């Protein structure tokens, strides 16, 4: 029962915040309480995970690994809430933004703590619907509303795919739980795996299903982009890991479908990112490219590549959230448009922000001192171990291609002359500095001591 405490605390906290907001509509208070609720839940979840608690009723299957993922989700949520309150205040978004973040993390934490398709669907829907809402939260902003609607329509497609996939799954196996089943050459089962895979490929914005991503990420308030482009990925890839361990290996050659979607997504995201003029949109395409890396990591069920993909997803979440949060701090300046020209000579205006953004971008390239390098190396070695040379080589080529557009932004920030009539001043308050520094420390720390995170993942991941 104790293993449920983090979720119960969050649920009660959300209801409390909804009521409190009626009487005390203040961003500082609601934001601080939201930060506190999710931080406490996260720390509790990590503590219970290390103590090895489990819970196996009501179709939940909470073990040490899912508690660990819950902990990461809640702690990341608390960090993002902490560093986005001042952005929301300056943009005057709706106050509901804080607890939609909490609701998303609640849905995700339900999703990672079950192996039953019905419970996964309920968690997925709670997270997705809250995401559609939080994208459209900018007041008087047409692009934000359009992004929200586009995301709603295409996200509902994913739900429909999930539903039809579950129907075929129960038809083929007569179970609703994801367990090891033995079916031979069953068309219904193959269709079930295909539809479930498409549903999650849509959710993680892999390439043939990525059309909502750039618009939704660009239209959303930038802190919300920092949240929805990172934290939900942890939950989605945890479910894809479940599918990859039980469902994908059964159908012959299904791993090629996963790998090929990954390759298309990687090249499409990384190549189209070069054509973008807006840094925010470029990072959106970068997240499509990363979806490709992660799917390639799951294309073979090899303990090394699968565990390092989960590791990579977590550290990628820290790096991308950090980069988007830097963008959100810049956007507090009213005339900021995220056009590349705005970034010219940023280091003169704000050395801290320019350095932080550059470090996050280096982390996304995957340069050695940063944690993402460990993830990339692990995926590559895992693919080589399972003799998937084709995917391993394409993975390296894709990663090298990606380096260019990150470097382009860094060149703009450090080596370009500023635009002449440019006299905008950048304000940086204490909370922003602390928030960004926390993300930077995480990206560095897990790069220098990857074993801290990796040991927990390896210990719990395969003994669920």
């Amino acid at each position: 029962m104790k293993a449920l405490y983090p979720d119960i605390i969050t649920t009660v906290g959300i209801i409390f915040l909804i009521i409190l907001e009626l009487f005390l509509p203040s961003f500082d208070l609601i934001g601080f309480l939201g930060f506190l609720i999710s931080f406490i839940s996260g720390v509790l979840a990590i503590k219970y995970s290390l103590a090895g608690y489990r819970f196996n009723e009501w179709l939940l299957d909470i073990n040490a690994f899912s508690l660990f993922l819950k902990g990461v989700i809640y702690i990341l949520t608390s960090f993002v809430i902490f560093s986005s309150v001042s952005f929301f205040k300056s943009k005057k978004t709706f106050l509901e933004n804080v607890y939609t973040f909490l609701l998303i993390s609640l849905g995700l934490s339900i999703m990672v703590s079950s192996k039953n398709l019905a419970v996964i669907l309920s968690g997925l829907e709670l997270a997705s619907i809250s995401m559609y809402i939080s994208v459209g939260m900018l007041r008087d902003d047409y692009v934000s509303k359009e992004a929200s609607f586009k995301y709603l329509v295409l996200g509902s497609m994913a739900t429909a795919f999930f539903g039809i996939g579950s129907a075929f799954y129960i038809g083929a196996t007569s179970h609703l739980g994801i367990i090891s089943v033995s079916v031979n050459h069953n068309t219904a089962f193959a269709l079930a795996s295909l539809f479930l895979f498409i549903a999650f490929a849509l959710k993680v914005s892999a390439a043939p299903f990525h059309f909502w991503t750039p618009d939704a990420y660009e239209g959303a308030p930038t802190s919300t982009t920092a949240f929805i482009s990172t934290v939900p990925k942890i939950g989605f890839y945890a479910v894809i890991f479940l599918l990859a361990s039980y469902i994908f290996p059964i159908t012959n050659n299904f791993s090629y479908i996963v790998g090929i979607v990954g390759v298309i997504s990687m090249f499409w995201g990384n190549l189209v990112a070069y054509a973008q003029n807006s840094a925010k949109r470029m990072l959106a395409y970068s997240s499509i490219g990363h979806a490709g890396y992660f799917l390639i990591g799951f294309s073979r069920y090899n303990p090394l590549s699968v565990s390092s993909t989960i590791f990579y997803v977590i550290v990628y979440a820290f790096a991308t959230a950090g980069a988007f949060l830097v963008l959100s701090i810049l956007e507090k300046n009213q005339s900021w448009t995220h056009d590349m020209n705005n970034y010219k000579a940023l280091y003169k205006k704000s050395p801290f922000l320019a350095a932080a953004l550059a470090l996050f971008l280096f982390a996304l390239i995957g340069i050695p001192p940063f944690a993402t390098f460990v993830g990339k190396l692990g995926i590559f070695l895992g693919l080589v171990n399972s003799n998937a040379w084709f995917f391993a080589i394409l993975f390296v080529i894709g990663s090298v291609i990606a380096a260019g557009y990150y470097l382009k932004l860094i060149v703009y920030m450090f080596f370009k002359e500023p635009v002449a009539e440019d006299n905008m001043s950048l304000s940086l308050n204490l909370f922003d500095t602390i928030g960004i520094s926390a993300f930077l420390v995480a990206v560095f720390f897990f790069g220098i001591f990857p074993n801290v995170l990796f040991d927990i993942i390896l210990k719990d991941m395969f003994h669920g």
Partner: protein
Amino acid sequence: MLNQIAFYLFGSISIICGLGVVSASNPIYVVLWLLGALIAISGIFFSAGAELLGALQLMVYVVAIAVFYILIITAVPWRKLHKNEQHNRLIGVTVLPFIALLYVEAFIVGISGVSITKNKIIETITKNYGNAEVIGIKLFSTYFWAFELMSVLLLISMIGAILLGRKEEKTYD
């Protein structure tokens, strides 16, 4: 005998209300016709002996969803939603073949007894779970957590509908 009379009564009411839904042009009238149709359908369920399904139909569709429709209509500028003749005809012509196809497909599947499962699992499930007791026990024991989560989901959907449908200073025409 009484059952049959009730079935034909509610069936004809639901057909009339359904025709009202597609022919009325004012959105408020459409919702009212829809409400009538939904109530009549729950009557059909009751007359067929499926009390739980009828009660769920009443609670979920009639109370919750129809109220949502009305809420949304009050939230958006509904005077613009008046359908015009041309629009209706286009929808009818494009959608009709697909609906016809759906009915033909359902008919064929029903006649031939095609099933994607091996041992007619779905049929046994519907046979076993046919009464309210089993569903209730399932819902409040095995599916307890998912069921409770749905209440949070409905709450946030309502909040979201209000927020996104809220009138703003700027309009985008």
